[in-house]
């Protein structure tokens, strides 16, 4: 199965993406509207009232995008001097209420971290490739790989040059991203995943420099700084153009459509989703969420076979398997959270434990991008943690532990509370050479909570 690293990089299932022979529908009258350029002028209504209803888009309502097709800079520009009746909303028509308070410089500095292609917003600092390599190895490589090649289906950040016309394009920083500012901005504000906004400015420069190096854009002695930042031109800088659908698509799709005798031959099936078999299924093998059978009107039978709590004991033959074992997909769902998953840990302890466990579950979110838990969990970047408390170290089958942790396991090491405390406080201090890039939980109460939570997870 092709997993996508970060939705929605997509979704390719191999093989079948061949040029289909589906017949395009014939438009009975072709081309009548084709010559009309997409109108640029906003319709009149918006200007009529100072505070019009939010979305009364009148008749042909071209979006600003329509205006941009030819002009490079910006959608806002073309309508600067429209006909009198088509003036866009002007702030001058609105009387301020005097609400809000002035934003302080310190507040703006804290929140406004955006960096733009022309260097606007770039903080003073620098970082070199070698440092970037180290920081990346420590904080990013667990998902993105030591060489930014991407582990499992996490995003590939390097390579892919020349692949954009391939059947499986590899869209990386080097092959696709048009601006270096985007790399700096994103790494600085959103990475590492699950520990955002923990990288210093210099670390961010260093990582950015390393990513340039990984993509063959700079040499290994390169130092990136706010001084030379805007001199870097990304390989795919010219690879983008503004939405041209108003010109290239809308005229084609605006004829009066055919209503009768539109086909020349009977329809033939060319692709069937069932052949791919990638849809989540209910226990009865139907697509997940298939509506229950209500024509079986017997009391209690009109329930979802996939829903254990909805199936009374006197059920018909449609329900038992479902009751016994809900489909794995159910676990991943954001269902309205029925009693079960929550009730279990709570029942094992007093109220204090329950609160601690609940807190631990929250803390565990920092771990969850790499460690899976619960029924059906599989090894990810890190091993499955079911039953970890009290278990021998390096015991999970199929996970490639670091040599040092494997060694500790071979010597009889056990993940008791003390060991977990020490490891979680300082992973690299406790297990020299651990693959876990996580910096650790510095707060004792967080460690207590997460260990309490891990204690509720039954072993494999």
């Amino acid at each position, binding site marked *: *199965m092709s997993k*996508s690293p*970060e939705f929605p990089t997509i*979704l390719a*299932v191999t093989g*079948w993406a061949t040029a289909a022979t589906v*017949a*395009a529908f014939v*438009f009975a009258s072709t081309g009548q509207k084709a010559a009309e350029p997409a109108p640029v002028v906003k319709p009149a209504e918006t200007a009529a009232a100072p*505070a019009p*209803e*939010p*979305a009364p*888009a009148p008749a*042909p309502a071209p*979006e*600003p995008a329509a205006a941009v097709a030819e002009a490079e800079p910006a*959608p806002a520009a073309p309508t600067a001097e429209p006909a009198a009746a088509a003036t866009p909303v002007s702030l001058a028509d*609105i009387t*301020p209420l*005097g609400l*809000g308070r002035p934003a302080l410089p310190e*507040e703006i500095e804290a929140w406004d971290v*955006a960096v*733009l292609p022309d260097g606007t917003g770039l903080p003073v600092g620098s970082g070199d490739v070698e440092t970037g390599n180290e920081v990346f190895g420590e904080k990013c490589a667990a998902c993105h790989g030591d060489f930014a090649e991407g582990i499992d289906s996490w995003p590939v950040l390097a390579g892919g040059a020349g692949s954009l016309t391939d*059947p499986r394009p590899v869209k990386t920083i080097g092959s696709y991203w048009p601006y270096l500012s*985007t790399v700096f901005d994103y790494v600085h504000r959103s990475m590492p*995943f*699950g520990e*955002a906004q923990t990288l210093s400015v210099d670390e961010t420069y260093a990582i950015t420099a390393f990513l340039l190096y990984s993509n063959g854009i700079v040499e290994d002695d390169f130092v990136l700084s706010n001084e030379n930042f805007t001199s870097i031109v990304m390989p795919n800088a010219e*690879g983008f153009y*503004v939405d041209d*659908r108003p010109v290239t*698509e809308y005229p*084609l*799709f605006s004829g*009066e*459509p055919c209503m009768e005798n*539109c086909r020349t031959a009977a*329809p*033939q*099936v060319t692709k*069937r989703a069932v052949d*791919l078999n990638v849809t*989540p299924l209910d226990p009865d093998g*139907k*697509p997940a*969420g*298939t509506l*229950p059978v*209500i*024509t*079986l*009107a*017997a009391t209690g039978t009109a329930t*979802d076979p996939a829903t254990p709590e909805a199936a009374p004991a006197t059920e*018909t033959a449609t329900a038992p398997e479902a009751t016994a074992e809900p489909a794995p997909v159910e676990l*991943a769902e*954001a269902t309205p959270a029925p009693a079960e998953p929550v009730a279990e840990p709570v029942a094992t302890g007093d109220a204090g434990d329950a609160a601690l466990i609940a807190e631990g579950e929250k803390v565990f979110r920092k771990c969850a*991008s790499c460690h899976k838990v619960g029924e059906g969990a599989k090894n990810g970047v890190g091993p499955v943690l079911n039953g970890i408390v009290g278990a021998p170290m390096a015991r999970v089958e199929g996970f490639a532990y670091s040599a040092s942790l494997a060694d500790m396991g071979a010597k009889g090491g056990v993940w008791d509370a003390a060991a977990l405390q020490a490891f979680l406080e300082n992973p690299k201090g406790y297990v020299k050479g651990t693959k876990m890039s996580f910096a650790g939980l510095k707060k004792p109460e967080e460690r207590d909570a997460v260990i309490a939570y891990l204690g509720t997870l039954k072993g494999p």
Partner: protein
Amino acid sequence: MTDEPVTSRRAFLAGTAAAGAGLAASAAGAQTPDPLITEVQEWASVFGDPVDATPYGMPIEFESHVVRRNVEWLTESTASSINFTPIHALEGTITPQGCAFERHHSGAISLSKQDYRLMINGLVERPLVFTFDDLLRFPRQITTAFCECAANGGMEWGGAQLEGCQFTQGMIHNMEYTGVMLRDLQAEAGVKPEGKWIYVEGADASSNGRSIPLEKALDDVMVAFFANGEALRKEHGYPVRLVVPGWEGNMWVKWLRRIAVYDQAVESREETSKYTDLMPDGRARKWTWVMDAKSVITSPSPQAPIRHGKGPLVITGLAWSGHGKITRVDVSVDGGNTWTPARLTGDVKSKALTRFHHDMVWDGSEMFIMSRAVDETGYVQPTKQALREIRGLNNVYHNNGIQVWWVRADGEVENVEIA
């Protein structure tokens, strides 16, 4: 016992007949009295739940299948992932918040009204900070709008892949929002003459941010705090999200914390490396914000097969356009040879979901059913193949092609493509 239109169901019921369970009377007429009618049922004799049994009610247990669903293999982490609205099980046009699809980039955060702050800065006359309480003092507006992920249908770009409109078209919801217009907030801060764009970003760990041309921002963009009459749910951006009618869902920033005015687009990750449309020549379209007209039949569909046999059949579905109102939806049951305008049921609102119904008598033979939306600009929803001829196979986003369902003689429904 009564006649049962789908006789194969009898086997399932063999064990329950003794327990007093009966079959619903069919049009063919009852031969034995239905115990659901002739016997006093428990619910007709004793109390039901008292008031306050559920101070905030959840759907009854019989509707427990009507939930969002994830497709696990799509993403590595559910903290940065998406799930799908069960549109096959819903009617009307408003999507309940509790089953409206979620898309998070770093998980849904808990941000209280007390801790909420909104900053407006950049090329403005007066950089400002608002509290939630401040927002409540601006004039409120109401708008209904669909929110569709740009990747809705993306998995279907290369061919039929997933069984069910929840998975193929379910990255969409439609809510009635109450909030304040962004222009009214912006008027407090003012905009310097060189300001042409706003940039909006969220308070979560991803701080997902997007650039929006000032003209759109001051037109119909809303800073919303109520949806469907109640506070936004956590997963929809409580306490404040952006509503950008007609434009791709990624721009509807949740947990909105900052609006900044610039003279250029920020070119953030989500508007360069993602949400851009790779074309066959290796170049990519950017700023493809508007969601073009689209429709889908929600029932029958793979998760909503026909179980009543031949005879009267209700075909229903949803249509929408980011360019304005839906003016017509045509339905075909013969693979696109013949098309019939469906009824547009209820109010048709601009940039909001429109419900259509097509009532017919099914003869029990197999059908290829399809719907085709037309909007007020005259745009006609194209086939997937027509889109591919322009955009190739690596486009991913903005797939508004016509969906074909293959209804089999037994009433089961498959996702297919036809030639």
